[in-house]
């Protein structure tokens, strides 16, 4: 079996490779999105801490 035959998938190349491409997309999205979510959560908490420290300082 050569490579062009492999990529042709017996004439079903579009259906097979679109499926595998979408799978790759879903996997990458599932890796990237929790990483971004973590960054967002941490920066939100950091901002909240800053705000509270300023309020504490103002009360004094």
């Amino acid at each position, binding site marked *: 079996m050569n490579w062009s035959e*492999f990529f042709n*998938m017996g004439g079903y190349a579009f*259906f097979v490779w679109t*499926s595998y491409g979408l799978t790759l997309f*879903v996997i990458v999205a*599932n890796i990237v999105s*929790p*990483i971004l979510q973590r960054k967002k959560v941490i920066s939100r*908490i950091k901002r909240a*801490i800053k705000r509270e420290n300023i309020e504490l300082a103002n009360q004094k």
Partner: protein
Amino acid sequence: MIKAIWNWIQRFSSPKYFYSMSAPLVTWFSIAALLTGLYGLYLGLFVAPTDYQQGESYRIIFIHVPAAWMSLFIYMVMAISSGIGIIWQIRLADMVAAASAPIGASFTFLALVTGALWGKPMWGAYWVWDARLTSELILLFLYFGYMALQSAIEDQRSADKASGLLAIVGVVNIPIIHYSVEWWNTLHQGATVAKFDKPSMHIDMLIPLLLMAVAFKLFYAAVVLVRTRNEALYRDRNRRWVRELIERL
């Protein structure tokens, strides 16, 4: 005795304890998922023989079926942990449920589109309103409903209760999906692996299929851990352990 067990459960299900223990698990699940997935892909794309009826198009099975299994599996995880959260008020269980929903939705989406891409060359249509396809589409909407309720309700405990109840009620859809191919006349083929008989599949096709299913499960385990860690940080944002942890970052 029961009190001792209860204390033990409470201790090990505390978000703080979970957060400190889960980091290395993420690494191990990721590595295991990558290795099993690559080996499964290799066997599925290069070693498994051509199907005598469907030609090469059947190779979509190695992602379509594991994705469909995951869509059901993650839903059950979501519903069971919602139940644990509602009945025993274990906060970690609610976090796992909330963390599972987007992952489950993404696998359901994948099962639907790879099914459409397989249906077109085999049945002549991307979509038909038959029992299996329609019940799987309803599963996607159940995930969306859970996520919508989670984000629409401000108070976290009410959000967990409302979305958790939706998840539990939605469990009726799971056997409908599984048995749809038997109960109704459908274009979708019957079960080839999950049935009370020998799987009607060539061993060289069955092994990569099972490997891919294991790889998808390990991948889910890694992602749900990371998402649950995020949930723990966010929901405990006003507690001391999170404050101390964030200040060290």
